[in-house]
Every structure is written in C-alpha cells, then in structure tokens.
C-alpha cells in the first residue's frame, strides 16, 4: 500500500536522519513529494510511503516517538467545479497526471489520489479556482 503523510519537525528535530531510518529499519520506499526545511532544522516534509501496512504503521509509530508530528496528507487540493470552464491550462502544468482533460467530453477531470501537491495548478488556473488546505 501507499500512504501520503505530512511530517512536521519542531525546532532542531530536522537534523535527524529520519528518512534513512524509514528505509533501513522499516523497509519502506520513500518518495519525497515536498520538502520545506527552514535552515535545516525546522520544517515540513510531504512523503509517500510504499510498503505493507504493518511496516507503515510501525514507521509512523517510530516517527511520532522520535518527537516529530505526523499527520495523513488529506488531499485538499480542490477546485470550484461550477465555475470551471475546462480550458485545460492546469493540465498542462500538472506533472503527476492528477488533472487531465481529454475526449470524448473534454471536461476537466481531477483524480486526487494521483495529486502530489506541487501546487502548480493553483498558479496555472487562469480563473484561480484551485484551493489547497494542508492537514497540519
């Protein structure tokens, strides 16, 4: 299974080799979707964990005990469907294919499970219809 999480580091905790331990100890394939670390000490990571559910649960338990905050990434990128004109500008910038537009109907389609929260859609939408809310 895969699970997307937001890892928030309090002051100083970001210097720990957390990802190394996730891979080495818990046999997890880790994709770093987003990393926003302030001066290497405090910040936030958005990770996709790929392993079996037991390993993922143990890994999350380990991270919480290590003093970092872990919360599931609720994919909260959303767009106002009623105002959308299906121009397709957002699909051009979307690297993960979560936003797509194609025949037969050429209506914008959004698959939240593919979204990697890169936020390019927010700036690419000419009508400014996208919103993001992190599950902090």
């Amino acid at each position, binding site marked *: 299974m895969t699970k997307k999480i937001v890892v928030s580091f309090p002051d100083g905790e970001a210097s720990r080799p957390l990802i190394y331990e996730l891979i080495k100890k818990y046999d997890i394939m880790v994709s770093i979707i987003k990393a926003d670390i302030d001066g290497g000490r405090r910040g936030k990571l958005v990770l996709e964990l790929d392993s079996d559910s037991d390993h993922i649960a143990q890994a999350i338990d380990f991270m919480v005990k290590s003093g970092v905050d872990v919360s599931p990434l609720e994919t909260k990128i959303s767009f106002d469907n009623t105002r959308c*004109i299906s121009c397709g500008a957002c699909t*051009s910038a979307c690297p993960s294919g979560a936003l797509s537009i194609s*025949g037969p*109907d*050429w209506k914008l389609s959004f698959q939240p499970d593919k979204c990697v929260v890169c936020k390019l859609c927010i*700036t690419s939408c000419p009508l*400014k219809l996208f919103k993001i809310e992190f599950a902090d």
Partner: protein
Amino acid sequence: MFKSYEEINEKIRKGKAVVLTAEEVSGMARTMKPKEILEKVDVVTTATFGAMCSSGAFLNFGHADPPIRMERIEINGVPVSGGLAAVDTFIGATDCNPQNPTYGGAHIIQELIEGRELTLEAWGKGTDCYPRKHIKTRISLKTINEAILMNPRNAYQNYNVAVNTTDRTLYTYMGTLLPHMKNASYSSAGELSPLLNDPECRTIGLGTRIFLCGTQGYVVWNGTQFNCSKPLNEYGVPMGNARTLALMGEMREMSSEFLRGAYFEKYGVTMYVGVGVPIPLLDEDLAHRVSIRNSQIDTFIEDYGCKGELIGKVNYEQLRSGEIEFMGKRIHTAPLSSLFKARQIAAILKDWIMKGQFELTAPVRPMPKGTSLRGLKEINQ
C-alpha cells in the same frame, strides 16, 4: 448546385434548415463527398472559447449634477481610459492597476455582465462647462447608459503551439511552460474553430451575425494583425497565427457563462471570450472547407524560450491525443482554450438557427486580401 443566403434564410424561417456543427460535418465527410454534403446541409456552426487579450468594452456613465469631464477614471481601482469625451470610457480587458496585477478590465467586464455594482471614481481639471473635479459613486449595468463589448482581435484563425526549450519554467499567455519541453500548450478549437472552416473568409465579413458571449453579436471589421500571408498546408489551411475578427455586441444580453476574466500567472489579465460563427454552405467549395478534420490542420511549434523560433510542425489530431513525439522527446500536450465550452456554443447556435431565431447575413464588406504584418522598428537617435 448553389444556394443563396436568401434561400437558406427562407428555410430557417420555415424551420426547415439543416444545421450541423463543424465537428458533426467533419465526421460526415468521412463517408460523403462535398457535393452530397452541400445537398444535405444548409448551415454549419463553428465556435471557440479562448483567452483573447484584445477585447474590451465601451461604457457611457451618464452625467452627474454638476457635471464632470472625466479625465482620469478608475473602476474598482483599475485605471481605464479617460480619453473619450466627458463620460465615455473604454475598458481594455488587460487594463490593471500594477499594485494588484491579478485583477483587471476583464474582471470588471465580467462583473458588470453578472449585474454587480462597482465603484467608479473619476477626476477632471474642472472647466466652465464641466465644473466638477471629482466624483466617487457606484455603477452597474442598471445605472449607466450604453455598455458595448468591442473586441479588436478575436477568434484567431490558427495559433502556434508553445514549448520551452530552456531550463527554467516560463510563465506566458500560453500558460505555464515547463523546462526542457516537458509540455506543449495549444489554443485552437481545431476543426470546430470559425476561421479554419472558412479559411479565406468567403462568408465572414463586416456585418456577419454571430454568437458572442451568449447573445447575437456582429463581426464589425477585420481583426487587428489580420494576416493573409501565412503559409498554407496541403489542405489549404493557414499555419500559425493568421486571420482574426473584430467583434461587437450588447453587454446587457451577455452571460458570464461565455465571458470570463482571467489571470495568467506572472503575465497578466486576459479575457475568455465565447464566439460562434455560422457558415452557410453556398457551394461545393464551402462544403469542402467545412469538412476539414483535426488531422488536416497543421500549426507550428514555437519555442517561447528562444525568441519565438519556429522549430516544428504538428497537427491537431496529434495535439488532442495528449502527447506528441518531437525531437526525440515525448511531450505532454494540453489545450488552453475550452473545447467543452466551444461545443456548447456551437450547439446553442445550431439550436437558434434551427428554431428560426437566428438568420444569416451576407458580408457588407469582404475581409482584406493579401495583408501581411509589420514589426515595430526601433529608431536609435
């Protein structure tokens, strides 16, 4: 076989006209010859819904008491033209206040159409006949006199596909262009697009009645940058940015379903405009022209990272597939103009004509021939 405008209009009045959208007729053309299409079909509807920066609106506010000669005008904080008499203005779609570049003229036009009330503030020096020097008030389409949409350049005949070969993201009016040609954006309704179905403007000229943003509007001139000199492909289709239309219509009858203010990141404000043009099938040549398919419409690939260099050619069937192969790369393609909305417009126009609510007009004046574009020379003193 030939048909006249009057014969077709007579059929429209009787509710007997056969009307198809340009996509429908392109499908029909797979099995039928132009001669048969001409016999069966009277009118073909075409449409597009894209970002068209060269758009705007004339407003007349009415006179206050005491009156003012408005020389500097702002609507919702956006400076608009103060150069039209005392209480007229032209709102350019791309007008904006540099302090707030994401909101501009196009949004004002949209909000007026939606019936909203906006803040008008104007200044004048004060004259003997216009003594007032300042006014701040609220306006809406209910309070002012004329409100006329006037777009100097809409409905481009074809448009280059945008890519970016540099190593940094470019923010353009063709959307976000990712580095190393990771994406390509195109902006034409292809086989549904008005000027691709009548490429020499045989039926489109001054006075042509059209669908404009939800109501009946008119072609009022050739559009600016009207260019007849683009190379033709083997199907007679101009490649790249060629002919354009100047359009006009009554704002009070329009709907923001078919007109939207928009902002392209780090570029500026623009306006999405919905246009539908009916093409009467007067003869076999027109029946042949409207049969054009996406696979037969080529356009150039333009590198927005390198001074607009044309680096390749592609057709709309390839672009619509979502991916093209070019210079050894697989490039994700995406549209910028809404085919979904363009289809709605073509269907509405078809419905109006079939119900006898919309008759066709022959051009009062044809479009120019043999035009080409001049660049702007810089003169070093």
